[in-house]
C-alpha cells in the first residue's frame, strides 16, 4: 500500500487533557495520519471550534498561520481555507479530510513551482478535444493521465486575491471528474467507426471481480475475498460493508488495469477469517460507495459492452447521492431517467451534457442495480412530451442552484 508521511499539525482550542486524548486518537484509530509538532513546524492546524471563545480563537489561529485548517465542531463551519470535520469525530472522515489537505498542499506546491502553469494549465486547443483522445490512446487505459486544466483554473491561478487556493480547488475538482469520466470528446461518441472505444468488458476488471465476489458471498452465505491486488478486499454484502486497507489512491489505479495484467481470484471465506473490527475502523467501508466509485473509475466515460446506446434507460431508484461520489450532471440525468426513460445518446443531447458524463453515470448506477433498460429503442412507449417549465420558474431554479453552490 502506498504510504504517506503523517501530516504535521498543531492543535488549538483543546486543553491539555483533550489534546492528549486527541493525540492518542490520531495515533490509534486515525492510523497516524497526522503527527502533532511544535508551533512553526506545522503544515496544517487542527482547531476545536466548539469552545466559548471560538471566534477569538479562530482569529488568533489565523493571525499566526494562514495554511490549511481542519475545523472540528458539531455544526458545520464554512471558514476560509478550512475543512470542517463534524463531531463526533470519525476516523475515516478525519483521514479523508487530511488527504484533502495533503492533495491541496501538493497542488499548491506544484502551482508555486510554476510547473502546473507550464504543464497542466493549458487552455483546450483548437483541436476540439482530439488531444484528449490521443492522451487516452497513448496511455492504453493502463493509467489515468494528469488532467488538462481549464481556462477557469488558469484564471483562478492568475487571480491575485487568494486565487492560488481557488485554482488548487478547481484543479482538484477537474482531476476528479477526469478520473471518473475520462477524456473522450463528444466527436468520438458520434463517430460510428470509433464505437469500440465507448465500451469496456466489466468481467475483465476489478469491477467484475467485485461483482463476482458479491455473487459468491450471497451464494455461500459468507463473506468473499478478492485476492491478487496486493491487499485483500473482503466483501460482506449482507452487512453492506467492505473491508480493505486500500485507500482511494491505491484502489483507483487498479480499476484501470485488466484482470490479465493483475490476476484476481475470488473465493468465499469463512466468517472466522474475516478481521475483527469495529464500526469506527476506517478499513470498514460502505460497499455501495466503494462499488460506485470503482464503477466510475473503471468506466471513465464508457459503458459495459453490450449496452444499447439508444434503448431507453429508466431509474428504478435514485442513487444515494449524499453519500456517493458525484459527477457533473448526475442530478439532471437521475431526474430525467426517473421521469422519462431516455437512451444514453439522447440523454446527453437533451440535457446538453458531454456524453462521457452520461456513460459514466450509467455504469455506476448499473453497478448498484438501480437501472432498467428497454430491450431496444423501439420496445418502450414513445416518450411523453416534456412538461414545459415557465422561463421565470427556470430562472428561479438556476439562481437557487447557484445559491446552493453545488454543480
Amino acid at each position: 500500500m502506498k504510504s504517506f508521511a503523517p501530516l504535521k499539525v498543531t492543535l488549538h482550542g483543546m486543553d491539555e487533557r483533550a489534546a492528549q486524548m486527541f493525540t492518542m486518537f490520531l495515533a490509534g484509530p486515525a492510523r497516524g495520519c497526522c503527527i502533532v509538532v511544535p508551533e512553526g513546524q506545522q503544515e496544517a492546524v487542527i482547531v476545536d471550534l466548539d469552545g466559548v471563545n471560538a471566534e477569538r480563537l479562530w482569529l488568533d489561529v489565523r493571525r499566526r498561520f494562514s495554511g490549511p485548517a481542519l475545523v472540528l465542531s458539531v455544526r458545520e463551519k464554512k471558514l476560509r481555507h478550512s475543512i470542517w470535520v463534524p463531531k463526533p469525530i470519525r476516523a475515516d472522515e478525519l483521514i479523508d479530510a487530511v488527504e484533502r489537505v495533503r492533495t491541496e498542499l501538493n497542488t499548491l506546491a506544484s502551482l508555486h513551482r510554476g510547473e502546473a502553469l507550464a504543464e497542466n494549465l493549458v487552455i483546450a486547443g483548437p483541436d476540439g478535444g482530439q488531444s484528449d483522445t490521443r492522451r487516452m490512446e497513448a496511455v492504453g487505459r493502463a493509467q489515468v493521465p494528469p488532467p488538462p486544466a481549464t481556462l477557469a483554473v488558469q484564471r483562478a491561478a492568475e487571480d491575485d486575491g487568494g486565487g492560488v487556493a481557488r485554482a488548487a480547488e478547481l484543479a482538484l475538482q477537474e482531476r476528479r471528474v477526469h478520473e471518473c469520466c475520462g477524456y473522450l470528446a463528444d466527436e468520438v461518441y458520434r463517430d460510428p467507426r470509433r464505437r469500440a472505444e465507448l465500451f469496456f468488458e466489466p468481467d475483465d476488471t476489478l469491477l467484475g471481480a467485485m461483482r463476482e465476489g458479491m455473487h459468491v458471498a450471497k451464494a455461500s452465505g459468507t463473506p468473499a475475498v478478492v485476492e491478487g491486488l496486493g491487499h485483500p478486499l473482503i466483501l460482506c454484502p449482507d452487512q453492506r460493508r467492505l473491508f480493505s486497507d486500500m485507500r482511494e489512491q491505491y484502489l483507483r489505479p487498479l480499476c484501470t488495469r485488466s484482470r490479465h495484467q493483475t490476476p484476481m481470484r475470488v473465493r468465499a471465506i469463512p466468517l472466522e477469517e474475516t478481521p475483527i473490527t469495529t464500526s469506527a475502523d476506517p478499513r470498514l467501508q460502505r460497499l455501495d460507495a466503494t462499488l460506485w466509485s470503482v464503477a466510475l473509475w473503471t468506466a471513465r466515460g464508457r459503458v459495459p459492452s453490450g449496452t444499447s446506446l439508444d434503448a431507453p434507460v429508466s431509474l428504478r431508484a435514485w442513487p444515494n447521492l449524499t453519500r456517493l461520489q458525484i459527477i457533473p450532471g448526475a442530478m439532471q440525468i437521475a431526474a430525467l431517467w426517473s421521469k422519462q426513460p431516455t437512451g444514453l445518446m439522447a440523454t446527453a443531447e437533451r440535457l446538453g451534457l458531454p456524453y462521457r458524463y452520461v456513460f459514466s453515470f450509467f455504469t455506476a448506477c448499473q453497478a448498484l442495480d438501480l437501472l432498467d433498460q428497454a430491450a431496444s429503442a423501439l420496445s418502450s412507449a414513445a416518450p411523453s412530451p416534456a412538461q414545459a417549465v415557465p422561463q421565470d420558474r427556470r430562472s428561479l431554479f438556476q439562481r437557487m442552484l447557484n445559491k446552493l453552490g453545488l454543480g
Partner: protein
Amino acid sequence: MAQYKIIFTGPVGAGKTTAIRTLSDIPIVSTDEDASDMTANRKPQTTVAMDYGLMKLDGNDRVHLYGTPGQERFDFMWEILTEGGLGLVLMLDNTRINPFQDMSFYINAFREFIDQTQLVIGVTRMDERPEPDLSRYNAHLASLGYKAPIFEVDARKKRDMALLVQALLYSIDPGIRNDG
C-alpha cells in the same frame, strides 16, 4: 420581488428545524415549546406552529422555508402552509419505531400537494441505526405509488441539505443548468 416557498415536513425529531436552520440565510424563526406529551421522549422541545427560514437569491427574490409542526394534532396548519409551495421535503428519522408508517402518514397527508409539485425524502440518523436501508425506503415509496429522490442526510450538513433541495429542483425540471 417574487416570493416562493419550500415546505419541510416529517415526524417529531426528524430534523426539520435543523434542516431549515442549515439552509436559511437568516436566523430561523421557530415556535418551539417545551414538550408536554409523548414527544418529550424524543426531544425536550417541539415545534408547535411552524419554523421559518429564508434563502435570499440574486435579483432580490426570496425562497421561504417553512417547517410544519411534527405533531399530528397541528395538521390543520399544513394545508395553509403548502399553498403555493414549490415542493415538499419529507424528513424521516431512521431510529423511530416504524419510519415506513411515518412515510405513509405524511405522503397520504400531503398527497394532493405532492401530486401538484414534487417530493424529496431525507432520512436522518442512519449512522445511529443503519436499518432499514434506503432500498427498503424506495420499495415502500413505490408501494405508495411514488418514485422520488431518497437520500441519507445529516440535517446539520449544508452539503446534504443542498443536495436534497437540488434533487427537488431537478425533479421538477431536469433541464435546468447550474451556472455557478
